[in-house]
């Protein structure tokens, strides 16, 4: 089947002044301009014949009762005292939590929560255990030790080079013959 021959729009050119509209094709009256501008045809959705059209399913509406803001004070008045206290307490906690999150201390608290390495157990070195002999308090031994300590001090403080007493460098080249 040739589609081009059957198309009534192509058979009746738009340029030819008053077009004679065929009766078979007159049902959908398309707007036609007399100018040479291209005609935009609307997209035709295919229609399935025999199949009943599916009605569009919109979002389900929840059964939330409408809140009348004018009635809130009266509702609060009617509320039991226990709930009022609890509500106030929760509100206070919420405010405090918000304030704490903005302060530095609050941030530090969050940092403390970060994972930290667990301390590694380290054994401190135990010094050599010395058992004193009967000569630990011997006067001669103590005297030798004391003298040795003094000697050590002298030894470390000894300087061998006498740098301040190096022979002075003086001018011996007195000669007036040279110019």
């Amino acid at each position, binding site marked *: 089947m040739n589609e081009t021959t059957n198309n009534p729009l192509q058979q009746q050119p738009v340029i030819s002044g008053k077009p004679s509209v065929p009766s078979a094709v007159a049902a959908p009256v398309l707007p036609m301009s007399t100018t040479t501008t291209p005609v935009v045809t609307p997209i035709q959705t295919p229609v399935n014949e025999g199949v009943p059209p599916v009605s569009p399913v919109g979002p389900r509406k929840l059964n939330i009762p409408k809140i009348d803001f004018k009635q809130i004070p009266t509702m609060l008045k009617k509320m039991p005292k226990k709930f009022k206290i609890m509500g106030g307490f929760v509100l206070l906690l919420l405010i405090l939590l918000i304030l704490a999150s903005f302060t530095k201390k609050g941030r530090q608290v969050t940092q403390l929560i970060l994972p930290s390495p667990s301390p590694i157990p380290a054994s401190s070195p135990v010094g050599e255990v010395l058992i004193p002999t009967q000569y*630990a308090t011997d006067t001669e031994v103590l005297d030798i030790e004391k003298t040795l300590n003094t*000697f050590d001090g002298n030894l470390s403080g000894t300087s*061998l080079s006498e740098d301040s007493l190096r*022979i002075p460098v003086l001018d*011996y080249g007195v000669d007036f013959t040279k110019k």
Partner: protein
Amino acid sequence: MRYLRIIAIASAFVFFLAGIVSVHAQDASTSALTVSPSATPEVFDYAKAYKDYVFVTDQYNNAHSSYLLAKAQYSQAQTLASQTKAQEATAAMITARDSVMKAYLVALRLRLSETEGVSDTSKQGLYSRIDTDVSWWATHHDRIDSAASLTDLTADSSDAQKHFPTTEVLSYEVLSTIPQGKEFSLRTRLIDLLGRTKSVITKVRSNGDLDTTEAERWTLQTDQKLTRSQDKEIAAQSLIATLSSTDSRVAQLNKANTYSQVTSTLGESLQYLKEASSYLKEVLKRIKFK
């Protein structure tokens, strides 16, 4: 009224007299205070001699600067006035130079006298040489005044220049002897301490209180360190001997370098002493504790 006037005049006279007496008393007390501290004579030691040496060196530096200026002016102008000025400046410089050498040798002598560990024989030998050298510089110093011309002064300076190597050798000998004496003194003290420790070990062993085998072995090692220290000292002594050697080949050596070698060798000797001292401490610890 008449009596009152007499009393007033008399009282004024009394006050005037009292004032004079008090002033005289103050004068007497201050004079007594000023006299008393000068009772103790000032000791002329190395510190004082070194201060003198530094002061005289400063004077020499000033005189040398003046000499250089006068010499330059004379070389340029060649006038009689500049010649006289150069002569004066040269004489001042040479006398200041001699003073520096004298002060230096005196300081060196006192340093040697205050050093322990140098034998009396060595000290006396060096003292005698130092004294001779000081007298040479003193004679030279006194001779400068009689110099009549720049030629005389040049000749006098040349004499000092010829004598300088003698002083140089002497000073390096003294400078090397001082650390050697220090090292010897320290080693002697350590040998004495080691001897005392050995006596204690002998006592402990005879009592049978402790096992002294280890302590005795350590004392032997301490002994070895002391022997090595002594070997280094002997090496330093042989280096010192080269300073005054008459051998022409040895005499050519740089005295300052030899002195550096001496101090370096004695430094090694001192290191052995430190090790020996450390060993001895361990020996004592071994005796005191199980």
